[in-house]
């Protein structure tokens, strides 16, 4: 009897080459190949079968995937927002600058020479002189107060010099000292140091970053629970099938394979849905953000997910899906014995 079984298996075997096949004994290599072929075949079956299950119950599969998609989209979009803010702020980073408002009686030439003179100071890296007329023109263009400004007899704006301190030796007290020194100069009306709000922004971003990490972790756990529970339900729905499969010699890995692939599909579709949601949101935000950037004379544009991050998003979905179903399968498949 076992001989007959063996022959059946032999017949299934694909010969590696003709010469080897004429040997009476199965070579180790061809046995390995047969096993590999079988393994591949069974994976393919589980892969297609689990996809078939999706097609069979499209609505419930879609709903589960959508929940996963939203759970993935939330932290991903927060992170993207954060990324954009960081990108914007990084262009300010290191550009800690002091704005000097000059006395109104200082004319343009005097201001220009003063700006050049300041460069000799060893604590100052760079100075930029903005003529009052230029400042007014820009302000009229961007503020929308053009008419009101035209009504004025003379330019209310002073000449301005932007001073960039030497970056290497910048620290709190040095900067304070520099501001005091500048403010004491007779040409200067007021010196304004813009770093306080920038520091606050950096701390704020740090907090937001942590919030995003916490939120992502919670939502990832949520995704695991959703997928775990969905797989648990489908394990119990297919209890009869699992029992029969065990009875006819299905190994544990054979039985769990379709469930693992289902988890993979849920995660993958969830990732794709998340990607779509973010893509749509981006399109909705692009216009308003562009207008806002124009107001700040910036050509800033929203940074999208990009290829790598899209891949990462879907990959995260797949990983969570596989992991969630794996936990569920390990916990619940053991409970089912053939009766």
């Amino acid at each position, binding site marked *: *009897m076992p001989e007959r079984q063996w022959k059946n298996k032999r017949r*299934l075997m694909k010969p590696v080459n003709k010469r080897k096949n004429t040997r009476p004994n199965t070579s180790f290599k061809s046995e390995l190949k047969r096993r590999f072929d079988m393994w591949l075949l*069974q994976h393919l079956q589980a892969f297609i079968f689990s996809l078939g299950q999706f097609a069979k119950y499209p609505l419930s599969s879609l709903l589960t995937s959508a929940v996963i998609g939203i759970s993935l989209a939330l932290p991903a979009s927060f992170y993207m927002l954060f990324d954009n803010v960081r990108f914007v702020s990084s262009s300010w980073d290191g550009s800690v600058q002091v704005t000097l408002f000059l006395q109104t009686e200082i004319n343009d030439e005097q201001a220009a020479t003063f700006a050049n003179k300041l460069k000799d100071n060893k604590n100052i890296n760079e100075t930029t002189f903005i003529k009052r007329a230029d400042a007014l023109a820009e302000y009229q263009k961007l503020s929308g107060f053009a008419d009101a400004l035209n009504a004025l007899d003379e330019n209310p704006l002073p000449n301005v010099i932007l001073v960039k301190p030497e970056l290497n030796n910048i620290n709190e007290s040095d900067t304070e000292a520099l501001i005091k020194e500048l403010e004491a100069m007779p040409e200067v009306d007021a010196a304004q140091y813009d770093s306080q709000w920038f520091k606050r922004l950096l701390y704020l971003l740090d907090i937001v970053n942590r919030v995003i990490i916490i939120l992502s972790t919670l939502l990832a756990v949520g995704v695991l629970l959703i997928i775990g529970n969905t797989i648990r339900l489908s394990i119990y729905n297919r209890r*009869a099938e699992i029992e*029969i499969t*065990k009875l*006819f*010699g*299905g190994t544990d890995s054979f039985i769990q394979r379709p469930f693992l692939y289902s988890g993979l599909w849920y995660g993958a579709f969830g990732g794709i849905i998340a990607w779509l949601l973010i893509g749509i949101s981006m399109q909705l935000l692009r216009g308003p953000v562009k207008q806002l950037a124009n107001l700040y004379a910036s050509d800033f544009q929203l940074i999208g997910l990009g290829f790598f991050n899209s891949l990462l998003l879907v990959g995260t979905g797949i990983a969570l899906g596989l992991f969630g179903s794996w936990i569920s399968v390990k916990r619940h498949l053991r409970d089912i014995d053939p009766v």
Partner: protein
Amino acid sequence: MIRFTNVNMTYADGNEALRNLNLHIAQGAMVYITGRSGAGKSTLLRLIALIDRHTRGQIIINGQNLDRVRNNRIPLFRRHIGFMFQDHRLLQDRTVFDNVGLPLVIAGYRHQEIRKRVQAALDKVSLLPKINSYPMSLSGGEQQRVGVARAVVHRPAILLADEPTGNLDPALSWDTMKLFEQFNQVGVTVLIASHDLDMIKRLQKRIITLKSGRILTHAGTPMEKQAQTNETG
């Protein structure tokens, strides 16, 4: 093929299902196991299929000592066995083809081979035209025959049937038993648990009667007894 030596089976709840059972069934034999419900018929089949493990004694199936079959080898061991149930236990959401092909899919056969064998098995139980139907649309007798086809499609060495005719009328029961006989004739060792004593007496095969976990009587055709003594000796 199947040898029980001083086998005891006590379930976790203390129920002694089999007591000191000794039994030998030769390769290619066809044996009926009968007795009242609770006598240990199902337990006997469950032990052979390693659904449960016996608590004492020795069981050797197909040359394998069941004590030595580790849990992770049980699936491979079961691939030599075909099962039949009273409630046929077909998967309602799969076609007849998928139901019958299941043991072959499990064993990793290729699709062409599966199709060939499923067709052959369904042809044997005269259900080839129903290959693409769902079990729901079949009659009780047809469903049972699908179960038979599934039990033999992977050409098992042993066929275990637990009350296979419990839900069938006498004519259908007789046909089913005759089917088992055909499989037996091509070399499959067949074990059938049944309480339909009238019918199995007419089938002229070896009958083992269990009572409270022991063998009460042992009746068989002379030819088979002969075969049995030959193998034992």
